[in-house]
Structures are given as structure tokens and as C-alpha cells.
């Protein structure tokens, strides 16, 4: 088969293999996708106090998110304005009053303003705001801080809230879960040796479900047909009749979250917010994945399981609940890691094919190509 061979109508082409292996392509994706769109960086509650900070990699940049003395979250490029040293070298922590460069002690307030530096008082012409840390756009939604490195960020309501509304078929549906009020029950960080697009494509389809997800298919029998919730608009995959809840063994879960309506009960909803968030909604909890693409063949995925505060505070054993999607994650990431090394094979030079239950992934590929075309 050659590139010019027309595909049978059941199939459409994927991206070519080099799209997953070439560092030039990844560099372009960092510049034109990861640094242009709203990027879900951290859970707001992870920074509880003034001075709490965390660094995350967004595209090619290290971004520092810090809570100010006024309790507001702010994001900055994590680079000293003096000689360019990385300002905060620890991934997370809490400073008392200020952010100080470990090289020459240029010292910034939690609002980013230059507060002090050796001999600064004899350099009266230095404007402390102009030589403060470079700010990054930040917006809080669903209890998470979303940042955008673009000078002019795209509309948050269109690109983030709109993506959720479009998949749910209703712009207010997600509010029934009150995600911003939920408590963190479990967090697992996965270091995945695969390109970020492989992980998105995997999440979007369920053609693989019956083969690699025995526990999930037990809970959601319709997944055995290979049609993911994301194939549809406003569709939640229904729990099996014998199934008690969204748990690893089909046992009862927790009480349905207060405002989740009957029509969303006993169903699983899955949403992708490009370029790096997966949102999973079930009646008694929410699973939110944040992907941090770090190189062409490596992606860190931080997965949060969120429950009603009373459930987490009670100290109840959550393991049957989070174990289901933890297994799904492991099974999915194993599959992605199986694909990554072979993306450079000449067998995949022109890419592969998408079957009808995967055709909606073509829209993701079109979106990627459109961004990269500039």
C-alpha cells in the first residue's frame, strides 16, 4: 500500500508517524498549541496559603503559580528578570513573604513586583513593576487555575467552557456536579512514555475498551460495542443493570452528588478539553486528568479523584471507587507506551487508519493540523 492508495470508505487516515516522534513537530505544538490555549495548571486548593506556590511546565516555559497576600492566585514566568536564573527551583512549597532568586537575591513580592535587590536603592531609575516578574494570564474554573501564555488568550468561554458544554449538549449540565466545591480524595501521577496526542486519541475512542478494559466494560456494558461516550453529544454511557456503582467490582458507590439530576444518574460522561484536560463525570464523583506534555515521547498525567467533602472527611475507604479508573489509566497508558516506539517504524510512515467508531478522532487531527498550519 502506498500513500496514494485511496482508503475504503470505512476508514480515514490518522496523522503520519513522524507527528508522534519528531522533536520539530513537538516544538511547533508547544509554540502553537500548548502556549496558545488555556492550560489547566493546578488545583486551586493545592495552594491554600499566601506564599504557597507550584511550578508547572506549559509548552516550553516553567510557569510559577503562587497565592498572594490578598489570597488571589497569580501566574508568572519562573525566570528572574536580572540574569535569567530559574527563580523557584523546587516544584512546590511555601515561601514566607517573597520570591527570591537564589543567584543574586533579586527579591519579588507575591504580586510579582520587584521588592528588593542588592544596591537597588542606589539605582533609583529601576521601575519595580517594569522589572517585576512577567505575568501569565490566569483564570479559575471548576476549582482549578487555568493559565494561558498567549499575549491575547482565546475566549475562555468558547475554548474551555464551550468544549464542556458542546460534549454535554447543555451549557449548564456540568454545574450540577459543583466541581469547585468537591474535595480531593485521591491523586495519582503517571509518567507516560508516549506522545500527548496518543493519550488524547486513546481517551476519545472506545474501540479498545472490550480488549483492554475488562473492569470498565463490566460497569459500562455498552462500551463493549466500541462506541465511546465522546462519539455522541450529551450521551452518558449507562451503568449495567446489575452494577451498583462506578467501582472496580461494581459494588455500590457513594450517594449521588446533591444537584446531579436523575437524567445524569447511573451514567458516565467523558469530555476532552483540548489540549490537555479529560473530565469524567459519574453520579458520585469526578475524575479530572491534566496532561503535561514534557517532550515528544513523554507526558506526565496528573489524575484527581474528587468527591463530596463529607465523603472525604469521613475517612471512608475510597479504594474500590478510584481503583476502577486507576486501572483504566494504567491499561490506557500501557497501550499508548506500546504505540510510541513503533510510531517511527516505516510500517507507520503514512500513519494508520481510523475505523468508523473512531472517526471523530479525525476532528482532533484536523484541529491539530489547523493550529500547526499557523
Amino acid at each position, binding site marked *: 500500500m502506498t500513500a496514494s492508495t485511496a482508503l475504503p470508505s470505512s476508514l480515514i487516515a490518522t496523522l503520519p508517524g513522524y507527528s508522534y516522534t519528531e522533536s520539530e513537530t513537538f516544538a511547533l505544538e508547544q509554540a502553537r498549541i500548548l502556549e496558545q490555549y488555556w492550560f489547566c495548571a493546578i488545583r486551586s486548593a493545592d495552594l491554600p496559603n499566601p506564599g504557597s506556590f507550584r511550578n508547572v511546565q506549559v509548552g516550553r516555559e516553567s510557569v510559577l503559580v503562587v497565592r498572594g497576600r490578598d489570597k488571589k492566585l497569580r501566574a508568572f514566568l519562573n525566570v528572574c528578570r536580572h540574569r535569567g536564573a530559574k527563580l523557584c527551583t523546587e516544584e512546590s512549597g511555601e515561601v514566607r*513573604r*517573597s520570591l*527570591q532568586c537564589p543567584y543574586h*537575591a533579586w*527579591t519579588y513580592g507575591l504580586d510579582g513586583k520587584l*521588592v*528588593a*535587590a*542588592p*544596591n*537597588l*536603592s*542606589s539605582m*533609583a531609575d529601576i521601575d519595580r513593576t517594569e522589572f517585576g516578574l512577567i505575568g501569565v494570564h490566569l483564570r479559575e474554573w471548576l476549582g482549578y487555575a487555568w493559565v494561558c501564555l498567549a499575549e491575547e488568550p482565546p475566549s475562555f468561554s468558547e475554548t474551555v467552557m464551550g468544549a464542556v458544554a458542546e460534549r454535554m449538549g447543555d451549557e449548564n449540565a456540568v454545574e450540577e456536579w459543583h466541581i469547585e466545591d468537591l474535595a480531593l480524595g485521591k491523586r495519582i501521577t503517571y509518567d507516560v512514555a508516549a506522545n500527548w496526542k496518543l493519550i488524547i486519541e486513546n481517551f476519545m475512542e472506545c474501540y479498545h475498551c472490550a480488549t483492554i478494559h475488562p473492569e470498565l466494560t463490566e460497569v459500562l456494558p455498552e462500551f463493549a460495542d466500541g462506541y465511546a461516550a465522546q462519539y455522541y453529544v450529551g450521551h452518558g454511557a449507562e451503568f449495567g443493570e446489575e452494577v451498583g456503582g462506578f467501582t472496580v467490582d461494581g459494588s455500590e458507590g457513594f450517594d449521588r452528588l446533591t444537584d446531579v439530576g436523575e437524567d445524569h444518574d447511573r451514567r458516565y460522561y467523558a469530555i476532552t478539553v483540548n489540549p490537555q484536560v479529560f473530565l469524567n463525570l459519574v453520579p458520585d464523583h469526578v475524575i479530572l486528568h491534566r496532561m503535561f506534555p514534557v517532550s515528544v515521547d513523554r507526558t506526565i498525567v496528573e489524575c484527581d479523584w474528587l468527591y463530596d467533602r463529607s465523603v472525604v472527611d469521613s475517612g471512608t475507604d475510597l479504594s474500590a471507587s478510584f481503583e476502577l479508573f486507576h486501572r483504566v489509566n494504567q491499561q490506557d497508558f500501557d497501550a499508548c507506551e506500546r504505540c510510541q516506539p513503533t510510531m517511527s517504524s516505516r510500517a507507520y510512515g503514512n500513519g494508520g487508519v481510523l475505523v468508523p467508531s473512531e472517526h471523530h478522532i479525525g476532528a482532533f487531527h484536523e484541529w491539530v493540523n489547523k493550529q500547526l498550519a499557523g
Partner: protein
Amino acid sequence: MISVCSIDDIPEGEAFRFNADVPIAVFNTGDALYAIDDTCTHQDASLADGWVEDGCVECPLHAACFDLSTGMPSGPPAKKAVRTHQVIVSDRTVYVAINETPAELPVGEEIGVA
């Protein structure tokens, strides 16, 4: 005696910096006003940019702490005291009487006004 500023120019927890023989800062702790030499005796940094707490000011650079009423450092990295100066408030104007003893400056710094 130097007329420095209006008392309204120094909110609680803040400082007002001015130039005499060396830079001097007047701090408002909420309880009282204190004037000390503004330059940390450890490295050239403005104490007026530091943090006021419990009657002390903490240098913003290396966290040396000075007692605002005595000028004494509470411990390393500063070893020498800063001078203290008398503060008088009259008609909401803040006046400072400059201490005539020579100022302690960080190693390598000469007296001079920025």
C-alpha cells in the same frame, strides 16, 4: 531636626525613606514611629522595603532583623547595629533629629547619598 513627611505618608506597617547624611527610614509599627538608618549593615538593601513585625524590621534580602527601638540586629547575617534617630510629630508633620554618631555601613560601602 529635619522635616520629613506628613504622618499620612506612612501607613501602619510601612516606612518612609529619605536622604540625610545616609538614607534614613521612618517606620510606623501602629504603636509608634521609629527612625533608623535605612541600609542593612550586612549588604546594601533598603530596610524600608522590608517587613515590619513585632517591633522589628526584617531585611528583604537575607532576613536580617533589626529592633526598631534599639537598632540592634537579632542575629546573623547582620552583625552591626543600625543607628536610631529621634522622631517627633508636630501638627501631623514627622520630624527626625539625626543621630550624630557615624553610620555603620555594609562592608565596602562608602557614605554617599543615592
